[in-house]
């Protein structure tokens, strides 16, 4: 039932008014119309209207596309926009489901589209004084897809990665020998805790200013667990101000367990792991206050940070504390590098848990990460070679969403 509009309106192009009307609010332009209707000829219609079920979704949606009217950005250039109209009957009546500005050649209709009902569509080209409908397209049905083909490449990469990780985790479980390179910032952790003990001063641990669903926060809490244990062994006090209540709860749990593991549960003070506020700069103001008043010997800023990174690190530096930072926020790394003694850069943050605990399972996953890196570098190189040899098919496998099946 593919009907395509291909009507010529050449004879109607008598007047050539150099009018140009902005793609602004259609409503406003309609008001203009009410006030002083300018004399006008109807614009050329939109052509080649095609509607199809929106791919890779759970139904309730139809995607339309058309060729712009000859008077849109060309011809008289007086089109102000298009109205998409829909009906269950090819003869109408049609109801408007969407209005778009000029220069738009496609929309997705999601307004109460019933699955498996046949719809007819029409696109109406509007200018200030008149409108021209396109030919009707239909019927078309919206449906449910059971697999998102556009994400097939994501699924494959995910599966490859998971397989690599699991393989090396299993190898590690079997007792394979695993090496891990030095990470200076983590080597310094114990020294930093020791220093605080010597000086009889506390340690400050800021687990970032994000929520628990941020993986960087989780990585930080894993490091906190190692730090808490060392701290307990050294009989030092640890202060953990929090930005998020759920993170605080987990931090309390983690620190308590650390003291328990070190055999000193009585030394744990729940009020040292506390909530401050979930507002960025008020939080920073409070942590700055803690740094200058409690004068911790060591400051650890590990997790997700934003612009406040440098405020924290510079205030900490002014108190003479040893500072170790770690974040995957690329924009903040330069400031931590400048103001802290050691900085865990990006992926090092995620490797920390394995590094500190040396748990074989975690070390295994690190090896999996490295293999995935090699896989990606390999992909880049293959892509580079094929692309420069004039074949872009390999690169298109990395399109998001994947379009090769469409």
């Amino acid at each position, binding site marked *: 039932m593919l009907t395509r509009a291909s009507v010529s309106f050449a004879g109607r192009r008598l007047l050539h008014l150099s009018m140009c009307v902005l793609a602004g609010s259609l409503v406003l332009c309609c008001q203009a119309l009410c006030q002083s209707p300018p004399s006008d000829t109807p614009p050329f219609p939109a052509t080649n209207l095609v509607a199809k079920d929106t791919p890779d979704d759970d139904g309730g949606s139809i995607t339309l596309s058309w060729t712009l009217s000859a008077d849109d950005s060309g011809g008289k250039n007086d089109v102000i926009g298009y109205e998409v109209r829909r009906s269950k009957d090819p003869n109408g009546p049609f109801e408007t489901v969407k209005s778009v500005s000029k220069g738009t050649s496609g929309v997705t209709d999601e307004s109460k589209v019933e699955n498996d009902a046949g719809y007819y569509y029409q696109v109406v080209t509007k200018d200030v004084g008149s409108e021209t409908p396109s030919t009707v397209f239909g019927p078309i049905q919206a449906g449910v897809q059971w697999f998102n083909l556009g994400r097939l490449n994501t699924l494959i990469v995910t599966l490859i990665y998971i397989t690599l990780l699991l393989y090396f985790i299993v190898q590690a479980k079997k007792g394979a020998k695993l*090496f891990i390179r030095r990470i200076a910032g983590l080597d310094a952790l114990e020294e930093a805790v020791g220093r605080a003990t010597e000086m009889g001063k506390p340690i400050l641990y800021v687990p970032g200013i994000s*929520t*628990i669903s941020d993986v960087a926060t989780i990585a930080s809490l894993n490091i906190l667990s190692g730090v808490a244990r060392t701290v307990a062994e050294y009989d030092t006090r640890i202060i953990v101000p929090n930005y998020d209540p759920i993170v605080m709860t987990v931090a309390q749990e983690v620190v308590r367990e650390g003291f328990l593991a070190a055999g000193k549960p009585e030394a744990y003070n729940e009020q040292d792991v506390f909530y401050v*506020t979930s507002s960025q700069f008020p939080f920073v103001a409070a942590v700055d206050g803690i740094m*200058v008043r409690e004068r911790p010997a060591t400051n650890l800023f590990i997790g997700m940070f934003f612009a406040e990174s440098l405020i924290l690190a510079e205030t900490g530096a002014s108190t003479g504390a040893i500072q170790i930072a770690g974040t995957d926020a690329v924009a903040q790394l*330069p400031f931590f590098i400048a103001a802290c003694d050691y900085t865990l850069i990006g992926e090092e943050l995620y490797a920390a848990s394995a590094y500190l605990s040396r748990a074989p399972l975690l070390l295994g996953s690190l090896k999996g990460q490295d293999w995935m890196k090699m896989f*990606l570098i390999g992909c*880049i190189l293959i*892509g580079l070679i094929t692309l420069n040899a004039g074949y872009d098919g390999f690169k298109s496998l*990395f399109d998001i969403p994947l379009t090769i099946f469409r």
Partner: protein
Amino acid sequence: MTGMELFWAWVAAYLTLSIYSFLYKDNVFYKIAEHLVVGVSVGYIFTINWFQGLHPYLFEPLSKSGEEPINLLRLIPFALGLLFLLRISRKYNWLSRFTIALVMGIGCGTAIPYTIEARLIEQTKASMINLFDQPSLWAGVCSFIILAGTIATLVFFFFSKEHKGVLGGTARVGVVFIMVGFGASFGYTVMARVSLLIGRLNFLINDWGKGTYHFIFG
């Protein structure tokens, strides 16, 4: 400027100067401002949470309003939230883990495909460049440098092998790229930060200073 506006301008100016006094050293003005803003911000967040979180997401779906049917499913997160509140109980605080586990699971499960798409696939694709299809020879060279730098930086993050030999050399090139990139970001940010300071000074001079002057002298 009305008298009330002038009053608030003075409050804001006083607090602004209190914060700046911290640059000299910690003092009573800073402490007041700091403690005040912690209280105010939590109170504000509480209100926002209530009216823009609990109200539309929990109270409204559970009460009959408008055409939407009652969404009893919302009782599940409500119950989980209550379990989380058991944190304060010594005996039942372990129940809060159910909630934490759920939130963590949702977070991790959502993060995996999203991260793989945005950080792995997209970036890998962006690295595949046609070196010869460039506006100039120099542009081609630059594209190649970006590519080499990306790979070298990635090599720096190899953990399971000692950084010696070729691997070590490449990793060192990666460090060079990282440091130049960080230096550039640092230098680039200065202007934005100075603008913030200019903005505050403008407030002090124009809104507060001149505002007060005009209020008194007309």
